[in-house]
């Protein structure tokens, strides 16, 4: 089996398993109240009976996960730019989510409700693109700094042969990072020590969820706080890994 096919198979398996777990977890979080746990949407339960509804929800959730995860293969295909890969993944995943959500009664059947349902996952993609972009940017900055060190002879352990002056202008890395490049400044300020804050971000997310749910009297919306914290944690982790070269 080729490496690409093996990667796709692994992504499909992970996606299916995660999808099965997450769709049930999200339904419980979204539909339950402090005194009543709801496993499947009442409309779906009424149509198929609770046992079959749970099976259907688990299988469809698995399918959504499988589609979303297998679509990440576009990020490994260099025929697509990062923006194109992100847009393709968004189109595939959000479509699967909306169709699955429509069938599982996670969302109302009017166009407005469907569009509203699409906004949150679509906005997440802006953050995904930004995180991946910054991750690559950090790695490329490190590579350029290493090349600069070799050229200036500071890295004596790795001899560098440069027979002629570079014909392409090389930007000063210090100037580049500290003065000229706004995204690099943002990256330095925002993400330098943020990985240490991951447990704190997680705790704040949970705390906000509880307070929000308590004040509102239902946890129907407060789970958004945990999701927001999760998105921030994923972004911080990706950038941290980029720095380490993982």
């Amino acid at each position, binding site marked *: 089996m080729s490496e690409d096919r093996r990667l796709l198979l692994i992504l499909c398996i992970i996606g299916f398993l995660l999808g099965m777990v997450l769709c049930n977890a999200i339904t419980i979080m979204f539909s339950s109240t402090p005194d009543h746990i709801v496993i499947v949407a009442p409309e779906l339960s009424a149509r198929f009976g609770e046992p079959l509804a749970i099976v259907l929800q688990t299988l469809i959730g698995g399918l959504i996960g499988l589609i979303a995860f297998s679509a990440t293969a576009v990020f490994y295909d*260099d025929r697509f730019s990062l*923006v194109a890969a992100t847009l393709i993944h968004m189109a595939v995943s959000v479509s699967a989510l909306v169709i699955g959500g429509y069938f599982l009664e996670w969302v109302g059947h009017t166009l407005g409700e469907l569009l509203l349902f699409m906004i949150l996952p679509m906005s997440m993609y802006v953050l995904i693109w930004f995180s991946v972009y910054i991750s690559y940017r950090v*790695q490329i900055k490190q590579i350029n700094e290493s090349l600069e060190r070799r050229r200036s002879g500071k890295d*004596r*352990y790795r001899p560098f042969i440069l*027979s002629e002056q570079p*014909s*392409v202008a090389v930007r000063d890395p210090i100037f580049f990072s500290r003065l000229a490049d706004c995204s690099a400044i943002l990256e330095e300020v925002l993400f330098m020590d943020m990985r240490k804050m991951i447990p704190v971000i997680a705790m704040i997310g949970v705390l906000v969820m509880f307070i929000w749910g308590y004040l509102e009297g239902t946890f129907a919306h407060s789970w958004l706080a945990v999701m927001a914290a999760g998105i921030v944690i994923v972004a911080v982790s990706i950038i941290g890994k980029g720095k380490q070269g993982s």
Partner: protein
Amino acid sequence: MRVDFLEDKDAYDTRVIIQAPERSQDVEELIEAIMSFSPSPISGYSEGVMTRIVKDSIIRIYSKDKKVYADTTDGSFLIKSPLYQLEGELPRKFVRISNSEIVNSDRIIRLDLNLAGTIRIFLEGDIESHVSRRYVSKVKEALI
């Protein structure tokens, strides 16, 4: 520096032993130079004439239209060996940047990322190419 040669007819392979009072930076550089030493030049063809290409002069080796080419400081040559075979024969300083291209890390000038997420690499000789996203970490590993 003294260089000794010991002939051993039973030796399985060529072995280099460096004897020094400590592992200084000079010794490290010597180790690096020996490790990246590649004895046999590559045969390249330009307008039907065969040329022996010194590996240090290679800027990049790439495949295009099912043929393999080497851009060197002395010009461009057609290579008859496949890319995967050359990868095994080249010293460690040669890094694969995509499925179809290997570059000499000593000849890289800089890398650049645009907003669309395309990673460009600038090499000596005004050569510009692209780094595959899945090879970025390998390039980094080779250089840092």
